[in-house]
């Protein structure tokens, strides 16, 4: 029942959106090759899926994204737990982190090419960069916020390092880390496009660039929609994961979505 209801909503929502889009096209009266309407984009989508190359592009993007994101998650969580525990060390590293964080991955491009070459690696590096900081910072702050009671319990039951870290700190911080993973997923997916601008010859980001250069706004919009749908799908997945963690850990349910 609930399922049907939500499909109904998505359907109505989609219809409204397409109608609005069509109206914008009609009222602005730009040449359809500059601002394509829904029909044109629909045909582009059909063509892209018909030729089948798009599946390869999706696969390549997902591959790069998965590697970059998972590497970032792994290293940021480990580093975050460590730095969160050794607060004095972090106090010295923090200014650098804060300085580097607000810089667009695009700005690093020349150095990324210099150090990592072209092809898959720079895309992975950019996804890594954009996922790394949110996860690192949320892990560090999570360690700082660990309920002191858990540490007392650990002390009381003679639990020593490294078990305090693996048995207590890591699971205790996990919900907040999961939240960091969620945020990082969103922001690094956004940078997929930027990442695949550098010498990639495949992938959704490459398609965006290529469509722009080929002045094919219909393919451009079709690719945008594909990126949006996959992003939405990934977000739903990780929300689900996060919700399970929250329930398991006994956090109160968040306000209804």
């Amino acid at each position, binding site marked *: 029942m609930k399922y049907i209801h939500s499909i109904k909503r998505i359907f109505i929502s989609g219809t409204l959106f397409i109608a609005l889009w069509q109206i914008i096209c009609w009222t602005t009266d730009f040449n359809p090759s500059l601002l394509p309407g829904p029909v044109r984009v629909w045909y582009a989508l059909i063509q892209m899926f018909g030729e089948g190359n798009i599946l390869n592009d999706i696969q390549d993007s997902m591959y790069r994204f998965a590697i970059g994101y998972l590497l970032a998650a792994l290293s940021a969580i480990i580093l975050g737990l460590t730095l969160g525990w050794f607060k004095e060390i972090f106090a010295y590293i923090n200014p650098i982190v804060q300085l580097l964080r607000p810089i667009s991955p695009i700005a690093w491009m020349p150095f990324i090419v210099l150090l990592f070459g072209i092809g898959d690696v720079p895309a992975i590096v950019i996804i890594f960069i954009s996922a790394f900081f949110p996860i690192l910072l949320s892990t560090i702050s999570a360690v700082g916020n660990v309920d002191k009671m858990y540490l007392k319990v650990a002390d009381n*039951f003679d639990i020593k390092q490294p078990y305090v870290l693996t048995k207590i700190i890591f*699971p205790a911080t996990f919900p907040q880390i999961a939240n960091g993973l969620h945020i990082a997923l969103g922001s690094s997916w956004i940078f997929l496009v930027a990442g695949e601008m550098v010498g990639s010859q495949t992938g959704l980001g490459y398609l965006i660039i290529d469509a722009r250069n080929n002045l094919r706004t219909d393919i451009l919009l079709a690719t945008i929609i594909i990126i949006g749908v996959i992003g939405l799908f990934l977000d739903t997945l990780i929300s689900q994961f996060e919700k399970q963690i929250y329930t398991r850990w006994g956090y109160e349910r968040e306000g209804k979505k």
Partner: protein
Amino acid sequence: MYIDIQGLTKKFKRGEQTLMVLDNISLTINQGEFICLLGPSGCGKTTLLNILAGFENASEGSVLIDGEVVSTPTSRYVTIFQNYGLLPWRNVRHNVELGLEGKKISKSKRKEIAEKYICLVGLDKFANSNPAQLSGGMQQRVAIARALAVSPDIIFMDEPFGALDAMTRMKMQDEILEIKRSQNKTIIFVTHDIDEAVYLADRIIVFSPNPGRIKEIIQVQLKFPRDRNGYDFIRIRDKVFSLFDIH
């Protein structure tokens, strides 16, 4: 004398100021006694418990337990907190096994011990439940089972029933007395509920605040189970009330 506190003083730095929280506390406790620390909020009960359990150091004075100076926490003296201190990512069984994991005990033995104490607190059916699925009283029972599992000599309890509603609370009081009787532990129990103290304690240590001092020590020589509305109970209760200027 099993626990021997001599001239214990505790000061906290607060910015520029020094706050004296405990002032020259001296007290001795025998093995197997049930001691209640009673006093208004902020009088230093938790601080005293933390020092006894080794979580904090005294500023002055000494604490000896079983002849040894207390320096760090150990599983020989286990503390039970108001918010239970359960690990929400572990189910009941694994929470109870927590204190056994550091010891050289085989897995099957560990499971056996855990099950024994889970049964003791009457949660056999919930061994695989997560803490979040249990009521407050049940969670506190898990914490008690976890504490008993490591066979401690002393159990410190810091307002363990403070988060429970009045009726559940009274049931838990009966349970903890039963456990005390069967396991014969020394229990130091913090509360600010006068009825609770009179119902449970062998001796009530009444504190006055600012700075925390022992105001009076009341012997409760009533037999168990005590009648909450019996004459002697009310007489002692009355005495404590008057110590706090309540009528």
